[in-house]
């Protein structure tokens, strides 16, 4: 009971909000293509479940693949960056480019390079979410205790041994924090990717569905798709949060694991 308690206030607010929305739409007789009522959105979601469920799965697959690529790419990038100050200073500006470039500006370019379809979607999701993993990883790998570095060099450790036995394990909590930030971004990346390249996947994803339903003024379906992408993002964030908590609890109290 105590575990559910913190979820009650936001849930109550949601219910209240939906009731108010429904009443307002009814009383003011707002046309459905402008603002559909929650009930009609739910009805549309149920009727279009044959489209919505595969679309959600497609987007989830794109987000997960982008996330995996960001974790692997970010970690390897951080390993590379940790090797020397000159590598960091010559490549870091380009890493920051990933963080600051408007993704909608380079997404069309990615589609030109990789073609419409899954690959482009994953790449957009990767570009959007790799930076937090990379920057946190670099932080974790370079902020090791200088005395430990001395200990390693006293025993003639190779840079590979330093990486494996010191830098990498030390960076785990940092990488986990980066992954938490990246997890939410991956869904955004997948949906933006689908805006540009979604017509190339076997099952259209949520991003493509959003474009399509907006074009056809099927506002109920649009709302349902947006709701589904929100749920996806929440799912990614919460799942990563749980995984992070589990990993860190093992690190904090390794004896109890």
């Amino acid at each position, binding site marked *: 009971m105590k575990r559910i308690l913190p979820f009650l206030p936001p849930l109550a607010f949601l219910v209240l909000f939906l009731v108010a929305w429904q009443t307002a739409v009814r009383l003011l007789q707002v046309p459905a293509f402008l603002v559909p009522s929650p009930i009609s959105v739910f009805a549309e979601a149920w009727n279009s479940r044959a489209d919505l469920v595969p679309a959600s799965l497609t987007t989830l697959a794109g987000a997960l693949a982008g996330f995996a690529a960001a974790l692997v790419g970010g970690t390897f990038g951080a390993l590379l960056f940790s090797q020397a100050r000159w590598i960091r200073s010559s490549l870091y500006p380009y890493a920051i480019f990933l963080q600051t470039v408007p993704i909608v500006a380079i997404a069309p370019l990615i589609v030109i390079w990789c073609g419409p379809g899954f690959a482009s979607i994953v790449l957009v999701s990767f570009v959007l979410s790799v930076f937090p993993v990379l920057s946190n990883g670099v932080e974790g790998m370079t902020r090791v205790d200088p005395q430990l570095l001395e200990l390693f060099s*006293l*025993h*003639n450790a190779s840079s590979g041994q330093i990486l494996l*036995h010191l830098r990498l394990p030390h960076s785990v909590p940092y990488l986990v924090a980066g992954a938490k930030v990246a997890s939410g971004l991956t869904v955004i990346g997948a949906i933006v990717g689908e805006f540009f390249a979604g017509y190339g996947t076997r099952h259209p994803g949520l991003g493509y569905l959003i474009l399509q339903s907006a074009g056809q003024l099927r506002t109920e379906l649009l709302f349902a798709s947006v709701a589904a992408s929100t749920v996806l993002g929440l799912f990614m964030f919460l799942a990563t949060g749980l995984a992070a908590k589990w990993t860190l609890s093992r690190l904090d109290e390794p*004896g109890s694991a």
Partner: protein
Amino acid sequence: MGVAVENALIQAKGLAFRFPKGTVALSDVDFSVVAGEFVSLVGPSGCGKSTLLRLVAGLIPATPGSLTVGGADPKASRGGEHRCGFVFQSPTLLPWRTVEANLTLPLELENVSRSRSREVAADWLSRVGLSEFAKSYPAQLSGGMRMRVSIARALASRPQILLMDEPFAALDDITRGRLQEELLALREREGFTTLFVTHNVSEAVFLSDRVLVLSARPGRVIGTISVPFGTRRDPDLRGEPDFAHLVRGATHLLREAGS
């Protein structure tokens, strides 16, 4: 001072060190340590004591010829007969490794086989009285226990020289006293040579055969105190008049050094 000793294991002659930013840490340091000796370095803070230890360990390069370990450049002693073990100010254990795995780390780095390094670790754990904590993590140990692990780790690769950089400074009085006695017993059994940095004069006198007093920065040796109490020392020695006399003498030297 500045006498070259024939059979010195560590020999510094006109040793100087300047940090890259230009601060002179040490200038014209002369001393020698013979095998099996326990020598302490005391001096005002910032006098370059820790730098001196790092030079002996070969962690920072000394001017060629000004410092030799076993007759050769300090860095050349690594992995060889005259290798050094280092105990830092803090225990510097890897928090994600068990006590046992922390002890095997130096051996792993030197590519000693897994089974052999486990044997060595178990052996050293029993010597420092921590056998039952082999599978514990550093966070689960007290400060004194962590320092014991750190000392065992430094000794596990069988160094001829043990370098200690204010290892007991962060411990409470009782733990510090006990660890000092344990260190003496270890040294008597294992026969390693020790260079021990501290700012605690009575600790230096209690542990050492010789105490070198360093001047304020740039550090150089301004006095040597021989401690004639042999290798086996009773904890009660700390209350003896002879002991107090030596501590007083060293403290006077140190006070002059600080000004």
